[in-house]
């Protein structure tokens, strides 16, 4: 699966994109966040703000949204365009 990061989150994590196989036991966005937060203190902090938004295959989704191995998941802070 592909995971994209945007805005301040991308900058904090130092990466805009991860390609990885769907981790064992990860069925939804909430599971994925828990998994990614294990990486280190920075990931723990940046993914734990409670204000992050998420999209699955370019459609907004909540933490309960199911994900599969071919999916494109995006994580980003509240938007500030216009």
């Amino acid at each position, binding site marked *: 699966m592909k995971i*994209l990061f*945007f*805005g*301040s989150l991308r*900058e904090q994590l130092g990466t805009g994109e991860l390609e990885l196989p769907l981790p064992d036991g990860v069925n939804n966005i909430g599971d994925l966040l828990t998994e990614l937060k294990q990486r280190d203190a920075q990931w723990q902090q940046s993914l734990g703000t409670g204000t992050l938004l998420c*999209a699955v295959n*370019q*459609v*907004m989704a909540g933490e309960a949204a199911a994900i599969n191995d071919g999916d494109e998941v*995006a994580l*980003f*802070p*509240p*938007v*500030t*365009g*216009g």
Partner: protein
Amino acid sequence: MISISVQIEDFDVGREYRQLQAGNTEVGGIAVFTGLVRDLADNPLAAMQLEHYPGMTEASLQQTAAQATARWPLIDIRIVHRIGKLTPGEQIVFVGVSSAHRAAAFGACEFIMDVLKTSAPFWKKELHRDGRGHWVEAKDSDQQRAERWNNED
């Protein structure tokens, strides 16, 4: 007709407007909004850096325009949003709506801006003249403006 562009290049308001006017004698009113990079008196801005989510951003704007079309009797909608590094005074966004009636044109134009501000995946970073950068934070007031449209008609 709905037309959406996300681009680095600047846009020409006169040209975009003429496309909306375009010799269609059913058009009674055209509402246009542009957003510009505003300088900050207390912390002068060197530039505003805009990033987006290619694909999803265009789809989000398309969906917002389609919602406007379902809500008001519109003729054409044009949205242009720039990305990249923009300096103070530069244009960021153009929303233009034509309709037979002015209330529809005004309503749809403001609706699109309000929803764009809170839903379209764009992120802005202020690059200050002192060398520091600062990600713009989403405003509660923008959220409230967008939520108005869930209540009133």
